[in-house]
């Protein structure tokens, strides 16, 4: 388990902002994997949206590509 106390925010803005970009990309990747997993286990979009704390419409808009990707494989 990741100990958040071990996270250090660099004082150099360039490094700190680079970390923000990398974290967003990591989060997006984790989100797509989790949604793919949820859909394959039969979760409806309403449940996925609730778990992500967003509306069903927002979840579908942002992540419908995951479903399209699953159906094409």
């Amino acid at each position: 388990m990741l100990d958040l106390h071990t996270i250090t925010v660099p004082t150099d803005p360039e490094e700190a902002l680079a970390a923000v970009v990398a974290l967003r990309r990591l989060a997006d990747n984790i989100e797509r994997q989790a949604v793919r997993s949820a859909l394959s286990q039969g979760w409806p979009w309403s449940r996925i949206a609730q778990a992500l704390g967003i509306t069903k419409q927002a979840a579908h808009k942002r992540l419908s590509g995951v479903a399209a990707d699953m159906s094409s494989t």
Partner: protein
Amino acid sequence: MFQGLKSKLNDMGTVKLLCERAETHALLDQQREPGAEHFLLAALDLPDGTARLAFEKVGAEPDALKAAIERQYADALRAIGLAADVPAGTPMPAKPGLYQAASSGREIMQELAAGRKDHGPLLGAHVVGLVAGMSHGVAARSLRALGVDPAHLKSAADAIVDVAQAKA
């Protein structure tokens, strides 16, 4: 006049190929909208070969750019104490509708369009020169991760453009 029209038509074909390749690289990178780093990868795919030549002029291996992009993400996470390698997933499907680039990608497209008042064909080296001129962002960090001095790369790309324009 005919030469100018021919050049414009060639440029349109180059822009189309550049945008398509940038989108493909973005989707492989699991991003919907191509950024400057994806346009740089796309420039290396252009058949004129001038983008690859610019890299080679500064002693950089063009085919190592993709790995350098990945490495700068891992380096950025490591800088905050997080060791996480994001495994390459399946490419994203293309987004239907109008072509959209990320902010850094839009900047490259806008600067390319603005620079089209210059004579001469649009070359991969034009894209390299523009991307190398960006001081911040994923593309700039990737070039540094590749061990490339962006200023040198920009000079090399601009010199290649000058030679090509003098020949045209």
